[in-house]
């Protein structure tokens, strides 16, 4: 173990004294002109958009999962479409091909991707047709389309976390949608959704 150096201690004391003197001078100087007004202006600014923004979403249900997706990606909500299965591609999230408006579109099971039960062919079942970019369409069946609503999106870290699956929170959604009735739904992240659809189809 090394012994303390008395010279070193003396130097440290001197430096501390100089620092305190500087700080004293800093706090005792006059406030610059317009300082308070600047702060008032900054504090008046609304919260950043990332934490609170308006959007229109499609609310739908797959098994027990209530989900939302920005309606800008939704091309159509169709009656259940007949799926044409493709050889060598069964037992995956890719269900097959469907026809919508004269086009042949890949159809995937979002339920299987999310680890939920497969959609049943109930009376409320629908097929959602998405358009990632012009001509690039995808379809997936859902058990029910609940509504198309306008409301507020909250980033997940800034809001109360409702009961939802962990996989959804960590992989599929980074914000919640609050509709006019106060209901909160996980909003699917479009990048993740399209990436998973591509992966399932290839």
């Amino acid at each position, binding site marked *: 173990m090394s012994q303390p150096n008395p010279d070193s201690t003396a130097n440290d004391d001197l430096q501390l004294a100089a620092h305190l003197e500087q700080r004293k001078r800093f706090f005792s100087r006059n406030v610059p002109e317009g300082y308070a007004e600047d702060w008032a202006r900054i504090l008046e600014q609304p919260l950043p958009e990332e934490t609170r923004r308006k959007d229109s979403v499609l609310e739908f249900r797959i098994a027990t999962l209530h989900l939302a997706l920005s309606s800008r990606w939704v091309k159509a909500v169709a009656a259940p479409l007949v799926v*044409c299965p493709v*050889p*060598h591609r069964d037992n995956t999230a890719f269900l097959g*091909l469907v026809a919508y*408006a*004269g086009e*042949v579109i*890949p159809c995937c099971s979002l339920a299987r991707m999310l680890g939920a039960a497969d959609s049943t062919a109930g009376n409320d079942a629908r097929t959602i047709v998405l358009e990632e970019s012009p001509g690039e369409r995808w379809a997936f069946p859902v058990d029910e389309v609940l509504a198309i609503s306008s409301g507020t999106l909250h980033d997940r870290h800034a809001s109360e976390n409702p009961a939802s699956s962990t996989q959804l929170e960590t992989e599929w959604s980074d914000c919640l949608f609050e509709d006019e009735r106060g209901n909160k739904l996980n909003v699917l992240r479009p990048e993740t959704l399209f990436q998973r659809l591509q992966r399932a189809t*290839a």
Partner: protein
Amino acid sequence: MSDFDDLSIYDMFRMEAEEQTEQMQARLLALRNGDTNEVALRSLMRGAHSLKGAARIVGLGGAVRLTHAMEERFVAAQEGQTFTSSEVDTLLRATDILRALADVREEEAPAWIATQESTITQIVAALTSSAIDPEAESASPTDATRAEPSDANENLSPPEESTASSEPRTDHAYAEMNLRITSQRFDRIIALSSDTLVQAQTMVRLQEFMQRSDRKLQRALRALTEIATSREHESRKDSVILTERLASVEKERAILGGLLHDFDRLIHSHELNTERLHREVLHARLRPFGDVVPNLRRLVRDVATEMGKQVRFEVTGERTEVDRDILERLRAPLEHLLRNSLDHGLEQSEERTTASKPVESVIRLQARHENGRLAITLSDDGRGVDTTAVSRKAIDRGLVHSSVASLLSEAEILEFLFLPGFSTRQDVTEISGRGVGLDIVQSTVHESGGSVRIENQLGGGTTFHIVLPVTRSLMRVMRVQLEDEIYAIPLNRLSRVAALTISREQDGSAVVDTGTKRVPVIPMMDALQSAETQIESGPATIIFLLNEKGLEAEIAFQIDRVVDETTVAVRQLDPRLGRMAAIAAVTLTEQNVPMLIVEPDDVLRLALQAKKRSILSQSTAHAGTAARGTVLVADDSGTVRQMLRRTLLRAGYRVSVAEHGAEAWNLLQVDAFDLLVSDVDMPEMNGIELVEHVRGNSRLSPMPIILLSYKGREEDRRRGLEAGADAYVTKGEFQEQAFLQIVTDLIGPAELQEEVS
């Protein structure tokens, strides 16, 4: 918003220049063959006039002067002043400039047209002087090609008489008015037309249902009237009321019946019209192969003239219908092949005379539909390819070791010609000889899902065979039910359908007796799914497919039932789906449901593999061994395939082979492999695409891949590795031990020696 709304005025000018020059060139070539008529002259004059206006709008003075001179000359011709052949050449040169201008970007156009100023001045002078040349006026209007060229055009080298006179007319190339429409919009029209057809057919069914209801209503009313009449004695007053009410209902029913009758006529007429509309729309997607021919004739004529060769260019199958996208992609490869043939293939007159050949060479271009695909053959009667020289060049360039080269077949040696920069020519000409061309031909054809091969006869000529899909066209199919699904089988690959009895051989395998032989049979769904289900003995519906050579395949397929024969609109598979084993395309049924069209070649291949697997699994089960260290080798060269297979087998690995990328992809999906060794340049699906498919598939992506290629340039290597290959080996530098070391590094040493196929 219109698809053309985003285009600038200059873009519109370019489109018009491209379209007008193409039509003008076709008409000018016909003119040169002596086909002078008023309709053609009026069209040429209007084309020049229209282009002049467009050039004025975009402010290209040089183009205005040029088109004005052309227009003036066409007007003079309309007034009786016929063309000399050199004048036609001058006009063709003018269209060349305008066509080239269509490829120049807007900001560069003024500078580009300035560089053409001297040529434009020369052409304008030639056309202006000839327009008042009394000698030209005296030429016979029906014999324009024999007229002497005027002095002003002497330096524009008249083409050879023989070339022009032998060319058939191609009226249909410009007989129709063109309407420009984007392919995206056209696809939307096709889709809407399909929907309308489906709706019309649904309405017919509804109408039939309504008529049935009407007949039931009539019967009910008759019964009620009889009851009312029979109860007359019970209450006269009630009976009268009932009869009156029934008469009122009957009257309304009669009106409804009349309306239904009118509706019936209307709906059937509507269905008929919708079907015709749909057929017309689908056919509009197709173009005659002859559309590309005028430019090719022009190329042959110009290059032959330049090289001083006498060439007859014969084209057959100009009316063969081809998808317009495919046709567009074909232009460049065909031009490359023709240049090669004219420059490399065809001999000069003296050489032909020495070889006892006619002085006039012949190039033949043929287009036809074959087995549901577009088959194009381009042949010449030239000197052919010296495969010894090709082999020597490949060895000199280090592409292949001499020991391997001596084992290669002629077809495999000819494959070297498709490598970038490969040419046996010592000199480089303007026409060809830089070794760029055949690799572009191959890659373009591969990109379109086709294949190209060479047939060679030293001293007798070379033939290129190009096979391309005829996508988005109509196809006759037989619809069959397999389990719960309906599939379409191309009718031209179907040999026959028969009701036969499935029986068992002594080894338990299922066969059908065709009367002349016993043929193995499997359920077609097993071939599609690569599954193995139990096939029941007894009566069954059996189909026989034709193989690639057009012969009945040595394996039969059981189906559940034949639905019908019909014509379907073929749609390309969505590229996002990647390669789908055994499926060629998709179509929509009348019920607006997708229906898959099977790929007969894949089905036959998968069926044979299934049989082999079945035999192998029996023997493996008997031996009680487990397979590890399994390698799939994909290479279209039989020699290379065998060399790799033997190398790997000797090292103790288990080996499967595939002849091209698509077959490899099929095998990868149905069997488990530890390593993929793939060639880069293969038909159907090349090695790079194969690697991308594997890396994009969650199950297969961890599998190591070695790419092998004759292409040894740094950019080729980088391209392979960037696609996801773990190693890139140049065939020219192939060393067995080094290769095996890479294999061992990637998957470890072999543990079992066994061959799969």
